[in-house]
């Protein structure tokens, strides 16, 4: 394929790429100037809608459609929340953008706020990204000084304030309703929908939550046009009238057992194999890959036989993964035990489950306990059925939980058992040939009387 010129990562190798002067010298904020001069907010919404830009945070929801849910004529205020909580295991691409090209993101924030009539934007930033905090805040300050933020931006009747709010190490705050609850100062138990955030979100006002990379794409759609955006990626499936296609550039994180882990940019739709071989220099130590996590831990596993699947919004679905997710691939080589993967994954989701919904709180914990028992050599084949049942029953897809964390918890279990059942059964048969459990006597806790 023709060599692709990075757009999202165009500036990151420049010295002081995070500074306003460097950003502007490369043509930064020209899109903002033009839009504020020539386009109405509705024009911008339409532009993004036509581009079929889909959210890069994991769900792939069409951004223009999300913006269109904002009620017409609402007195406001409207809020834009920037989801910079990036906590999906394997994902680090937003970090690259925020540390090395924050202004690209901020220009996207300003454009999106203009479109959605938001007057306040909150950047919910993961606690564990201190350099991102420093760079983003410095960039915001530069923007205020230069007149890109604050009152009457570039002389137009459009004002915007941007605040950076730091998280406190909870994965569930990356979920839009958890993010909103946390921003309001409450415990991050994702709020139930309906009402939807576009109608009643932050402080019960119309709110849009967008991912960092999505907003960076808005900048480039405004700069280079819808045609350009749609020239990249995979067009919609002609057999599926509801498929919006997978357009535009994507940041693909690559990590795990590869020779050249890193953040790479390519048009949506490169295959997993291309990413590993052409960008990542192949599996390390001359080994074969057993599987990858295709787009952050929630998306599950893709076997080596499925590596020719295009990494766009539809591809991983077709091989039984949750979806593209964040597009950050983690490679597992042939020596890596799937049980370890399963253990790690289940521990993560049990630790991060917010705990309000019964199926997720109890299901994730039960899964961990079963896997711990299997690892300790006391597993039963029946445990795999129980794990499968947990995987099939928790989540917003069956409708049994409030948020998608449970689906993310379920998918690695489903894929591990669905695609690597033999390996898991072997382990159980090997370590617990009798197949029954030896129960260790456990002391009952004495009631602590007051």
């Amino acid at each position: 394929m023709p060599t692709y010129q990075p757009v999202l990562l165009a500036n990151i190798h420049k010295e002081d790429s995070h500074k306003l002067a460097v950003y502007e010298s490369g043509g930064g904020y020209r899109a903002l100037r033009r839009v504020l001069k020539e386009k109405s907010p509705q024009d911008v919404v339409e532009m993004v809608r036509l581009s079929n830009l889909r959210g890069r945070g994991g769900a792939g929801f069409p951004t223009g459609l999300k913006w269109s849910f904002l009620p017409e004529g609402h007195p406001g205020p409207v809020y834009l929340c920037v989801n910079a909580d990036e906590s999906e295991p394997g994902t680090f691409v937003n970090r690259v953008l925020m540390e090395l090209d924050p202004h690209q993101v901020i220009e996207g924030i300003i454009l999106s706020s203009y479109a959605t009539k938001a007057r306040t934007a909150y950047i919910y930033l993961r606690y564990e990204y201190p350099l991102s905090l420093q760079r983003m805040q410095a960039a915001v300050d530069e923007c205020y000084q230069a007149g890109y933020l604050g009152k009457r931006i570039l002389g137009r009747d459009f004002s915007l304030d941007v605040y950076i709010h730091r998280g406190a190490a909870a994965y569930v705050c990356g979920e839009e309703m958890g993010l909103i609850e946390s921003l309001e100062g409450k415990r991050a138990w994702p709020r139930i929908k309906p009402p939807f955030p576009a109608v009643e979100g932050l402080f019960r006002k119309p709110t849009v939550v967008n991912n960092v990379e999505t907003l960076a794409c808005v900048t480039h759609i405004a700069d280079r046009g819808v045609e350009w955006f749609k020239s990249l990626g995979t067009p919609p499936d002609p057999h599926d009238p509801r498929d919006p296609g997978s357009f535009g550039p994507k940041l693909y994180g690559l990590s795990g057992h590869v020779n050249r882990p890193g953040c790479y940019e390519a048009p949506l739709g490169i295959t997993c194999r291309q990413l590993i071989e052409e960008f990542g220099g192949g599996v390390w130590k001359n080994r074969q890959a057993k599987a990858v996590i295709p787009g952050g831990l929630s998306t599950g596993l893709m076997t080596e036989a499925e590596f020719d699947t295009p990494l766009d919004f539809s591809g991983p679905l077709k091989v039984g993964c949750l979806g593209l997710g964040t597009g950050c691939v983690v490679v597992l080589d042939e020596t890596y035990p799937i049980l370890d993967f399963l253990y790690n994954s289940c521990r993560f989701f049990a630790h991060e489950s917010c705990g309000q919904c019964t199926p997720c709180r109890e299901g994730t914990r039960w899964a961990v306990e079963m896997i711990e028992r299997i690892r300790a050599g006391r597993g039963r084949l029946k445990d795999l059925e129980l794990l499968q049942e947990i995987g099939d029953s928790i989540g917003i897809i069956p409708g049994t939980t409030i948020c998608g964390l449970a689906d993310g918890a379920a998918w690695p279990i489903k894929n591990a058992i669905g695609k690597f059942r033999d390996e898991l059964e072997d382990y159980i048969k090997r370590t617990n040939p009798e197949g029954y459990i030896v129960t260790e006597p456990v002391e009952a806790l004495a009631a602590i009387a007051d």
Partner: protein
Amino acid sequence: MAIVIIDGRELEIPARQRLNGIQAAARLGIEIPHYCWHPALSVVGSCRMCLVEIGNRDAKTGKISMLPKLVPACNTIVTDGMVLVTDSQKVRQARARVEEGLLLRHPIDCPICDKAGECCLQDYHFLHGQDERRADVRPFTSRRRDVGEKVTLFVDRCVMCSQCVRFTREISRTGELMVTGRGAHEEIDVVPGFPLDNKLSGNVVDHCPVGALCDKEFLYQQRVWYMTRHPGVCTGCATGCSIWIEENQDRIYRIRPRENPQLNRWWICNEGRYGYPHVHNRRRLIRPRRRDGGEIVYLDWTGLPNELAGRLGQAGHLAAVLSPHLTCEEAYLLGKFVRGLDAAAWLALGPVPVVGQDERFPDALTISAEKCPNRRGVEAVIAHFTGRVTTFDQLLPEIDQGGIRGVWFSGGYKTDFVDEATARRFESLDLLVVQDLFPSPLSERADYELPAAAFAERDGSYVNRADRLQSAPWAIRPPAEVRSEGSLYWELLRRDGLYDSRAVLDELTREALYFSAARGPVPEVGIDLKVNLLADASGSNV
């Protein structure tokens, strides 16, 4: 008008009524199980027990199309044409799994848990749960943590429904309870430095669907299936919240709120909730006695009413102090009796106990400063007989002057209501009859000291501060030698048969305009007497 189809049955919902799936199904007698939903609290939809299938019936074609995923009924407002399915395989399976999830880490505490017999976890397990336990069993009992003066928490029994937390935030607005930890490690606790000590704190125990939050007064006292509950009215203050009095063999073990949308909604305050121990206090007067000079003679009820009537007749000029703790019927009968003996008898309202200020809990209830249930009712009865209301303070100078020779004092006071100095002013009387719960400076000077019935032993009606009349049938029998005021006055008036408070109320509603709205059956939520007072004052009745 909206038509909703639930399990194949149609339900009509009037326009402008917003009902969720649970409420709509309840109208058809279908119970959708739930832990975290409560009509008074915000909807969180977190327990996932109320999951149902929903769909839509096309208005034109009648075709029904169902959504593939389950939704929580508590957060689904039913609309016209909505189809709800609560008993499909998918729904049953989801419920069974939620129940299984809650039982996974639940302590094996049923034998020692207060909630047994009224526990949602038990009931739903029986109705909706699985037969077989599929997870490892780790038998353990719950840790316990006191969260306040009246409430204790059995931490591990909690199912994280968060009703208690939302109650303290939205209803009592005190915010003492919170959730700590995350995921499976979550626990309920108090915000550091803020124990759960607001005046509505006892209500969190009612809200808790399991035996996590327990009432320290009730803890381990009685099994719920041995108790019989009786509808009653709290007599702790002039608000008169509707209550359930739960007793076994004439001993009260628990007071709980009775739902009354017009008055206290779903709650009662701690004063009312814990306002029953005095009923079984050993200090209670339980035998009628007479003082002859320095000697105390214990009396028999046989013939006592005649003796009392005789002595009162002899005294000539009489006064009756009608306690604001009396029911309307009792006040009426006493007034009638005394006025029958002396047509010019004084009728005065007894001392009205007032403590502090009214305390308003917006959205919930108001705790009145006036700590008696029936001042308005008794005043109306007094006004009916005498044309005016005489207060206790206004009566005392009359007694001092010597015009009054005999006083019948009705009590029912839980706490001190009279001091030595005031009591001494009654010494000059020829006859003093005191009927009360506890010994007092006044009862020590009484010629006849009669035991009074406690609130749960009385039968009659009370009128609260907002003119709401409520019926309070008797719940327990009084101790052996105690004759309730109502039955004693009935006998003093030489009426036949057993005391019938409804008959007296009927009489009262005919005699006094103020009470006329209570002519027919009194609804469970009581009746606002003002409805008839705004009408034609000529006395014509509905």
